[in-house]
C-alpha cells in the first residue's frame, strides 16, 4: 500500500531523492531491513521520487520505521541524505496531520510526566531493595511552561493515528 504526498514538501525532498542511482548500499546495511525486509531506504527514495508517494509497511508510513542508525546516510555514495528526509517527513507528518503511529503520540505525551519513558514500579522497587536513593522528581511546572511555549499540545492535537489506516 502507498499513500500520495501532494504537499509541496515532496518537491523539496525530491531534489535529494532524484540523486539516488539505486546502488542499494543503504539497504545492505540497514538494521530495520534485517528484521523487516520490506523496509528498504532505496525503495522508499524511489517511491518518493517517481510516484510522489510513501509506501506503508505494517500500517506505518515507511518514514516512521527508521531507527536513526545513520548507516545508510554515512555510506550513500550520492549524498541522498535519506535519514534526514525521513526526519523531515516525520515533522511534516505531525504538523500536517498525516498519520502518526500511536506509539509516537504516546511517547510524546509522556513528556508531560517529566521523563522520556515511563518509570515502572518494578524499577522503583528494585532501587529501594538495592538501597539506591529515590529518583529525582522532575519540576512539572517548568515542563508545562516549556510545552506551552513550544505549542506542543497544539501539535499533538488532532493527529491521525495508525488505527485509521488500513
Amino acid at each position, binding site marked *: 500500500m502507498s499513500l500520495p504526498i501532494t504537499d509541496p514538501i515532496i518537491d523539496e525532498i525530491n531534489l535529494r531523492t532524484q540523486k539516488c*542511482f*539505486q*546502488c*542499494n*548500499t*543503504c*539497504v*545492505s*546495511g*540497514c538494521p530495520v*531491513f*534485517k528484521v523487516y*525486509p*520490506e523496509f*528498504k531506504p532505496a525503495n522508499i527514495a524511489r517511491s518518493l521520487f517517481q510516484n510522489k508517494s510513501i509506501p506503508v509497511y505494517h500500517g506505518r508510513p515507511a518514514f516512521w520505521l527508521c531507527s536513526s542508525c545513520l*548507516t545508510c546516510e554515512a*555510506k550513500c*555514495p*550520492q*549524498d541522498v541524505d535519506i535519514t534526514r528526509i525521513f526526519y523531515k517527513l516525520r515533522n511534516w507528518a505531525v504538523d500536517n496531520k498525516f498519520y502518526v503511529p500511536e506509539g509516537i503520540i504516546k511517547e510524546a505525551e509522556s513528556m508531560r510526566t517529566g521523563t522520556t519513558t515511563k518509570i515502572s514500579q518494578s524499577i522503583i522497587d528494585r532501587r529501594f531493595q538495592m538501597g539506591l536513593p529515590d529518583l529525582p522528581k522532575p519540576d512539572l511546572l517548568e515542563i508545562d511552561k516549556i510545552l506551552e511555549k513550544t505549542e506542543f499540545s497544539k501539535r499533538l492535537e488532532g493527529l491521525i493515528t495508525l488505527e485509521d489506516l488500513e
Partner: protein
Amino acid sequence: MAIIEEKIKKDSETEEKLNKKIGVFICSCGKNIGGVVDIEEVAETVRKVPGVAYAETNKYTCSEQGQRSILQAVKENKLDSIVVASCSPRLHGETFANCAEDCGLNRYQVEMANIREHCSWVHQTTPDEATLKASEIAEMAVRKVKLDVSLETVKVPMEKSTLVIGGGVGGIQASLDLADAGYKVYLVEQKPTIGGIMAIIDKTFPTIDCSICILGPKMNDVKNNKNIELLSYAEVESVSGFVGSYEVTVKHKARYVNTDCTACGECEPVCPVQVPSEVDQSLGYRKAIYLPFPQAVPPIYTIDTNACLNKGEQPIVCGKCADACDKKAIMFQDKVTYSSFKVGTIIVATGFKPFDASRVTEYGWGRIKNVITTLEFERIINAAGPTEGEFLRPADLAHPKKIAFIQCVGSRNVHYNTYCSNICCMETIKDTLLIKDHYPDVDITVFYIDIRAFGKGFEDLYTRSRLAGTKFVNARPSALFENPINKNVIVEAELNGLPYNPEFDLVILSIGVDGPHTAIKGLPLSVDTDGFLVEAHPKLKPVDTANDGVFIVGGAESPKDIKETVTQASAAAARAMRLMSKGEFEVEPLYSHIDPITCTACGICVTRCPYNAITIEDKKTKTPAAVNSALCKGCGTCAADCPEDSITMNHFTDKMIFNQMDVILRDKPEDKIVTFACNWCSYAGSDTAGVGRMQYAPNARVIRTMCSGRVDPEFIYEAFRKGAGAVLLTGCRPADCHYDTGNHFAGKRENKIRRWMTKNNIDQSRFEIEWISATEGKKFQNLMNKMAKVLQEQKENILASKVLTIEK
C-alpha cells in the same frame, strides 16, 4: 626569443601609409544584396569618403570575374588597400585575402563590410534604412583599412625532437610513432624500467592476451630504436622556453649499476636484504639489488639504497653483489646527475594512480587479510608473481573456492572520486573468466551498481562471464566482516529484496583510479580538481592542451584502458609531428605589443593571458611586461584591462575601433546600437540570423573583435559620450570562449561599467551583455528587437545625456 623580438619591431615599423589609396568593391550578390540595398547609392556615398580612390559595383565579387575586376582596379589605380562590401568575412575573408595577395598586396590590407548577413538579408522590409546602414558599414570598413598595417606570419623555429614524459604503454607508443617517423625522442621514466601498469598486470581485456607478452616487444623496440634516447630512473626536473624550443632539464637518479650489466641475475640470490616488492603490491619480496620484472627495459639491475646495507656511501658494509658480478658492473660510488636538451614538443603520458582501497574503511582492506584489490589479484594470478600464478589467498595460502568481487570501489562516490573509473567493470569480468578457465569449480559473485561494458567486444565478454556461471548481484555491500575462526569474509548485502550476507573465502575489491596531479616546474599544464590533465577541447582536441606543443595521453588525461591509451598516444604523436614536420611553424600575426615605456609592470596582463604568453622578467626591478608573439593568440583581453593602455593589438587597435564608432555615431547617434561582437560566436550568431532571414530593426552596427575580452570599458564610455542610443557587448557563452577566459574577464567589467552609467545618468537598460553562440540566430534577432524597443522607451534619457557633459 631574440629572433621573435626582431620580428615584432619590424612589423610595427612597417607602413602606416598616410596617403593610402583605398578601393571599395560593392557586391550585389545577385539579388541577395542588390535586391534590397541600392548599391549604386552606396558606391556614390563611399566615393566621397576621404581616402577612397576608387569604387565599383559587381554582381558576384567572389567569382573569377569579380576577382579579375579587383585585380584590374588595383593595378590601374595603384590601390594600397581594398574593401569588399558583400557577405560575412567568416565566409569569404580567406577568399579576398588570397585575392589581395594575387594583386600583390599584403593579405591584412583587406577589410570586408558585411552588408548581406548583417544588412540586406535582415532588413528586407526597410530598404531605405538598409541602404543607409550599408553605406555606414562600408565607411566603417574604409576607416579601419586606412589604419591596417601589412603583417607577416611569424615563423617559429621548431626543433624536430620530442620529450615524452612517462614510459607506460602510452609513452611507449607515442615514442615509437615519432621515432619511426624520423623524429628524435627523449623518453623519461621515473621507475628503473618502462612498462608502467600494463607490464605488471596479468591479462588484458577483451582479448585476454598476456599483458607483458604483447607489451614486451614494444618495450624492446624502444630499447633498440636509434631515435629514442631512453632516460630511465630519471625525472624531468624543469622545463623552460616555449613551443618549438623547450629547454628540458632531467635528473638522473643513482642506480649504482652501470650499463655493463647483462641482467644475468647472479647478484640477486646473494643479496642478504629482502624488502616488500612494489611490483608485487607488497605481497612478495625483492632484494635490495633488483630487476622489477624479467622483461624490464633497460635490462639493468638497480640498487635501492634505502634497503641496501651500504646506504650508497663508504664504508662498504656488504659487497656480496659486487663479488658475484662477472661484469664488474656494480659501482659503490654513484651520484645523482643532471642533463639538459632542447625539444620542440612535449607529450605527457604520466598515467593514473590506482585508488588507495584503505580509504574505504568499511571494506577492511589492510585490516581483513582476505580482502585484496584487483591489482593484487593480477599479481597473484601472474606466473611471475609472488605465488607463481597459483590462486591462493593471503591469510593461509589456501585455494579459495568461493569468491566475490565488489565494484565501484572509490568511484561514483561523493566521498572518494565522483567519476566512473572506466576500466573496473571489464577488469572484473576478465578476471572471472581467467579464474573460471583455470579453476572451473570456483564460485564467483560480482556485487555491482551498473555493469559498464561499452567497448568493442566488451558486452560479449560480459555474456561469456555469465555463461561461465558468474553470479551478478545488483547490490553494493554496506560492509565486510572477518570471520575470526576461518578468516573468511562476510559480505553484508541484499538480494531479491531480502538480506543477503554470504561468506566468501576471498573478496576482491575492484578499485578505480586517481588522477596523477602531474606538476613539473616550468611546464604549463592545466589540472582539474580530480587531478587529471585538461585537454584543449573535450570533443575536437582531445590530446592537445591550451598550450601549443604540449600534448597529453592516456590515464593522465582521464581513466581509460589500453586501447584508448594507445589511440591517444598515436594521436598525440601525429599532432606533434604536424607542428614539427616543416622545421618551423607559422603563427597568425594577430598578437599584441606592450609599450615598454608606459608599462608599469603591474602584472594584470599576465593574469589575463590563458596562454602564458606574457612575462615580467623581474618583478622587483619592474622590468616591463613582454609578449611572446609565438604564444599570443590575439584575444585582446590583456589590452582591455591594462590600466596604462600600454598594449596594442595587431589588426584590432583601439584607434581602429574608435574610428569605426565615429562613423556609426556621426549621424543620429540616438537611433544607433553600437554592438560589439566576437569573431567566433556572437558575430557568427548574427550571421546565422542573416542566413535564416530573421528580420529585425536596422538600428545596430556591429564592430567585430576577435574576442569579447577585447572590449575595453573605454569603448563603451566613448560610445555613450557620443550619444549612442544603446551599447551591446556580445560574446561566446560562458565556458565556451574560444580563448578560454576572454568572456569571463569581459563579464567581470560589468559592475564598473554600470556604476559609470549611473554616475552619468545613463539608464541601465541602454547597456546589455548577452552571450550568444554561433547557432543562436534567434537570440540575436530577439536582442535586436528588444533593444530597438529600449531606444523608443528611453528616447528622453538618450537625448538628455546627449546634451549634458558626460564625465570622462
